[in-house]
């Protein structure tokens, strides 16, 4: 299985950070997912082999962490926080707005594969609530109008 040179470089370096190989597993899974889009059977088999683990063990770990997924997601994963601080400042309404705008529900993906939507727990932006993350980018102090603008920009970027 082929990963990017950057991935390989990071992976090789990471192995030197720990006394056991499997210690590199969690961050490696996330980086692999970022490259491939999801943790496919192929990725699991490859990483299991590289880290001297069984595929079962790798699956056990993947299914524990909420950012990791074995199923494909949209190019842009819109993650809206509805936890307490965001809820108080309209996080749920924002999520509702995104659902309507994108025409998909929690963990859904648009037919063009551009967006998926997720209701997430606190992302550490409570003082700037309501907040959302698109992939790894934070968007804060959101309103419906601001969200529209943001989604439109991603759409433009994604279809270019």
């Amino acid at each position: 299985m082929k990963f990017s040179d950057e991935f390989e470089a990071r992976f090789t370096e990471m192995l030197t950070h720990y006394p056991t190989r499997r210690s590199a597993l969690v961050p490696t899974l996330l980086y692999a997912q970022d490259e491939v889009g999801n943790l496919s059977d192929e990725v699991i088999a490859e990483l299991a082999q590289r880290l001297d683990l069984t595929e079962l063990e790798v699956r056990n770990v993947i299914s524990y962490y909420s950012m990791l997924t074995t199923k494909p997601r949209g190019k842009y994963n819109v993650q809206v926080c509805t936890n307490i601080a965001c809820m108080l400042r309209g996080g749920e309404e924002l999520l509702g707005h995104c659902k309507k705008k994108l025409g998909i529900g929690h963990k859904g993906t648009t037919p063009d594969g551009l967006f998926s939507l997720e209701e997430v727990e606190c992302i550490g932006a409570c003082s700037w609530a309501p907040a959302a993350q698109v992939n790894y980018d934070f968007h804060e102090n959101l309103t419906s109008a601001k969200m529209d603008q943001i989604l439109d920009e991603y759409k433009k970027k994604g279809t270019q």
Partner: protein
Amino acid sequence: MGIEVPSFCYYPGLSLQGACRMCVVKIEKMPKLQTACTTTVTEGMIVATDSDEVRQARKAMVELLLGNHPLDCPVCDAGGECELQDMTFSYGAAESKYMEAKNHKEEQQWSPVVYFDRPRCILCYRCVRVCGEGMDVWALGVQNRGVSSIIAPNESDHLDCEECGMCIDICPVGALTSGAYRYKTRPWEMNHVGTICTHCGDGCKTTLGVRRCDTGAEIVRGDNRDKSGINNDFLCVKGRYAFDFAHHKERLTEPLVRKNGKLTPATWEEAFELIGKRLREVRDQDGGSAIGVIGSNRTTNEENYLLSKFARSVLKTNNVDHHRTADYPALAAALHGKPGKTASMRDVLNAPAILLIGNDPTNQHPLLAWQIRTNVRLRRAKLYVINAAPIKLRRQAAGFALVPAGAETKAVAFLAGDDSMLDQFVSETVTREAWLALREKIRGEQNMVIAFGSELRGHDIEALVNFASSLTGAKLISLGDYANSRGASEMGLYPDLLPGYEPVASADKFQKEWDSLPAETGLSLPQMAEAAKAGKLKALYVVGSNPIGRLGIDPFVFSKSFVVVQDMFLTETANIADVVLPAANAYEKTGTYTNTCGDLQLVKKAGEVSNTKPDFEMIVRIADAMGSDVSGLVPFGSGTHSDMGQTRGAQSGEADRHAVWLEAHNLEPKMTPFDPMAILDEIQRVVSGYDVSRVNLLAGNDQHLEIAESGASSIQPPELIVPAHDDLFSSGTLGRYSKTLNSVFENKTAVPEVAAD
């Protein structure tokens, strides 16, 4: 102290979890309740194991569990044996506090024998641990988190594993159930009989659940719930499920006699009469040496002894043999004058070190492998493995040396100090230094158990024994296949050896005991085939063995011989017989087995298939049909007192040895010639090493026997030893007729093997 603290996740021998919170106790000076399982008791600690606070906490745990647990106890396989049910009774959480619907999920089939009912699972992780820590298979994991947590099999929707069923056994509720048993019956509707597994040479104790059926009594379940015996709660796939051959539809249930070239049903009387007549004819006309007798690795000690005695004293032949899978006589000979040098199965669990030469216990001796793993895990025993294949147990090994196939014997010589072969052993994986270091370590071990496979035979075993004698406290185990191969060997199923490895050539003792027996050494199994081919073997009597199927003997060589076969199925050998007698198997009779370590245990009748007979009874009936005096063969009845021993060859005027012995041992004479205990009396009396405690035996306990060392150096031709090469999913003829084993095996081959570790 006898105080019971409840728990779900705690399980002796497995790692601690602290997950179920049922074992909470109040410890003085600690603000919170503490889990007993994870608390180390210290001096002066004051612990309350039961108080209102503690009871309330436990009650709440049960309530929480029941909130999502289906209340389908009436149809659940674990009903009556469910730890959650028991807890609910103890802590009374009958009223449900929750109104929401329970999470439902369809039951899944993970393998032919393992079913998983997710909602019933209480996540105690026992299955995950027993599979990983106990079996070293690691086929079960936990996926997702929180309330979505679920036990998952290694192949996403099915299992690729050793199918031992330990997970099912250890499951406190009915989440993991057995494909062989599910929905068949309820625990309280069965009879439970404690007996010994019929498969490999390890001799696991098993409790068989038996239910009446049209044709007798059917075995519906095998487990070792009471954890008695040498195997604690362990059973492998064969022990747990492969009892189903007993009710295979091809099981023979009536005698067959060849008429016009075809095997045709006959009555027992007709069959015995014919056999008696023909065998007597051959004996009287051509002499006993024209008769061959082949015994079994799966019949009881009593049957084997009786067969040996019948052959020599009634048929007047020493042409006696069996399918040999280990060279026990060589070990007996090498241990002459060295008492206390064999290890029991229990020793393997406690030895500080184990040296394994050859064999693959994971496949061939599952219990031995379990004992080794458990010992390494819990007691930090050192395991050294010398093998021609990278067997799975290397993962537990402190030292593993891969040798070229067939070089195990050279490795022994190397251990003993002969460096001439060292260069051949050195490889990329095991360097010269590693070999030398391994030898140093092995030599430094005290009280080591040395288990060796059939790779070592004859003089190799002598060399190994000599090496072992140079160590402090080392003990040996010779690994043979089949449930009673050691018993077959010790009961004298050899052309040149009598019970207790007594050589035929110097058989004074048995000349006396058995009246008279032929003086010259008999023919081995291949020699019998040769003799038959040459037209010299006129009759062949085969008891519970399939030499044509298992040893590749040409069936046509026996075309001119009168062949009698006692078996459960129409095997390749039975197919060429003139008379076939339907035999009961070891689950259907009583007697004793000696496992490959020399641990003697009681086999008890559990199942029953009507119109079959134990081999014991059939041998006696044949002797009777031949016109021989049955009481000379089986010491039964009060006649043993009155005839002053005449019939058993006691010197005239001498008191009956047997009666004297019985009296001295507080035993009564047995009342029927079909009682195997009568022969056990004789075995105990005359076979060295077998004078065991009867009470202990009857209580279902194992007793380790010294290997009967006669002192005769009987070196057997090595080529006569043919290992069975059975693995976890095969078990000779029995395995072929076990539906469960076959379905498990087919399931395996259907799934592409994932690159293992």
